[in-house]
């Protein structure tokens, strides 16, 4: 248990801790005031230092509307209740996570989501050769203007780096993984097409209300690895085609980033989305 007052006492002058906005076990996220500017402080245990440093090294260079900007270029150490932690600041994003949006999206909203997420992973891949690997509603912020920000890039991995974690589901979240993430021993490097699959899952989820691969079902792994998912009825064919491509069982069945962008743009145009 972390005592926020203890943490506040150890922060630099001018930085005032606000409410905790996310509790991921040992990983905490707070609102804060940094000399009049609203920021986010991410606090992680010492054993997540590598991940935090990576997030900072990548995120401090971000200049993209659909990705968060890290405000520090290094992580800071802090001891809380006898345990070592690291922390850093990130620009505050107004809004709430997509996880808190329980109503189903209409096709145009879903396309807006797909377009923003594809823009974010395109930037990650083309500028930094990074795969996010953990795209899910809790890692997507919805701004008041309806635009989306892909957060928590710390789980992302440079394509040439070795995996920090290994095992069947890590990194990634059950229900939000691509087939190739289930087969870490196959030797394939992940690339941007893994993120496109994860975007497909989220887009499906906001349209249908459930994930295409239901993690609580006993045949979850079988269906994911076989690429079998229920095709929702009543969706515009443009959306159906997009889901079909994004959720391609094998990476080679998925679109390139450019194709994905074009598919979304074309669908928006055909569906007269503003």
């Amino acid at each position, binding site marked *: 248990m972390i005592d926020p007052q203890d943490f506040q006492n150890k922060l630099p002058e001018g930085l005032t801790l606000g409410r905790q906005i996310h509790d991921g076990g040992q990983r905490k996220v707070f609102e804060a005031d940094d000399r009049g500017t609203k920021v986010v402080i991410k606090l992680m245990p010492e054993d997540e230092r590598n991940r935090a440093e990576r997030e900072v090294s990548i995120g401090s260079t971000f200049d993209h509307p659909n990705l968060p900007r890290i405000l520090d270029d290094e992580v800071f150490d802090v001891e809380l209740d006898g345990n070592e932690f690291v922390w850093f600041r990130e620009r505050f994003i107004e809004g709430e996570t997509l996880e808190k949006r329980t109503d189903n999206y209409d096709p145009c909203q879903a396309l807006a989501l797909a377009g923003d997420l594809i823009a974010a992973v395109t930037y990650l891949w083309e500028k930094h050769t990074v795969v996010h690997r953990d795209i899910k509603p809790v890692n997507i912020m919805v701004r008041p203007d309806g635009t989306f920000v892909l957060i928590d890039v710390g789980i992302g991995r440079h394509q040439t780096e070795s995996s920090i974690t290994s095992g069947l589901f890590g990194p990634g979240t059950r229900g939000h993984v691509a087939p190739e993430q289930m087969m870490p021993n196959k030797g394939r*490097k992940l690339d941007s097409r893994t993120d496109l699959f994860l975007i497909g899952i989220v887009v499906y989820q906001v349209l249908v209300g459930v994930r295409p691969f239901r993690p609580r079902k006993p045949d979850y792994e079988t269906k994911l690895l076989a690429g079998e998912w229920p095709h929702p009825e009543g969706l515009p064919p443009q959306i159906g085609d997009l889901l079909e491509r994004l959720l391609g069982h094998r990476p*080679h069945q998925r679109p*390139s980033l450019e194709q994905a962008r074009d598919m979304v743009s074309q669908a928006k145009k055909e569906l007269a989305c503003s």
Partner: protein
Amino acid sequence: MFLIQGGHQSSTHIEEGLPEGRADGVIWSPGDERPHLLRSRMAEAAEHEVVQAFDPQLYVALLEDPNPKRLPDYELFDLPLPPRQFSARRLAQLVEGIIDFQIELPVTHLIAPTVAVSSMTDRSAQIALNLAETSLDVAEDRDDDRPLLISVAAEESVLADSESVDVLLDELTAHEAEGYYLLFEIDPSKDAAGQASLLSEALYVTYTLGVVQERPVWVGYAGLAGYLFRAVGAKGFAAGWFQKQQWFSTQHWAPGGGGRSPRPRIYLDTIFGSLLIDAELMPLRRQRRDAALAADLLDGAGDLAAGHAEGGPAPDAPRPVCAAQLLDVCAELDKRIVGDPEEDLDRIQEELDQAEGLYDRISAVGVELDGRSAGTQIGIWRTAIELFIDRAGLD
């Protein structure tokens, strides 16, 4: 787009075929051309403003005891070249030499060197993928305007395993290639079911790269099956007169005798195959049990077919004339492609029914066909299309 596949004694066909518009271009074979003659022939071809490319044929280099023919004259790589010579440093030098050589030629497209892939889990796959990646890096560095086609030479052992094909495609599509030059080993002496299965996987590779990934794809050494590759998204296919220019195999580079000169044979688009002129076509023309059969067989593309269709004595059919007929048939098949795989495959299936009807009529009049003429390709193509449609989820 139909291209002439350079190969053994192909210069005549190229020189005659290009000016007469029988093909859209040529893929040159350094193994069959002396370097100085290649340059002059390329210059002549360039006057016709056709597509030209140079297949570096590095896939010969991994063979233990190849018959390299003219390849050593180019001094692009040692022969043989053992796998240990494909280290990262040496591989970069090798690729640079091969790409730079092509940049100096009047080609319209550059072709990346490759080795034949026998398995996705052995060294050949890693070498081939490294060659592709290095070629992309070199081409980007050279900043040449001409597109670089990544080449892939898939042996039967890869095509026989759909998981291997999936892995190959996953790897290939991870790179932003400008296009692909695909070579598939499908031995026509293999049993029909085996050939159909291999062909369906080759079609799937072509479809994935050409249609799903929207990249220009050429299929080399395709023979008349190039028609199927075009139907599933290949932008071009290549074929030449000799059998070795109609299906790919590194075994074509094994030492051995040249074999007999092929007997005069006429290719016909009505049956997607060929007949021996003396032993098969002429008896079919002479028989009277099915008076319309010869006319129906010959009711297609090509000057030689037209000459026979006129009746009278058999027109002279030296090899250049037979080769020109093949080129005309390939060009005709190429022209039929509308660019929608489902529509093209539907039409081809109807055409296969018609072709099968012609073979039935040949059988009914009692003319015996030899192994190469017997029409086994009809069943192979039909099965391959069905397997492909299922594999690609087009049904």
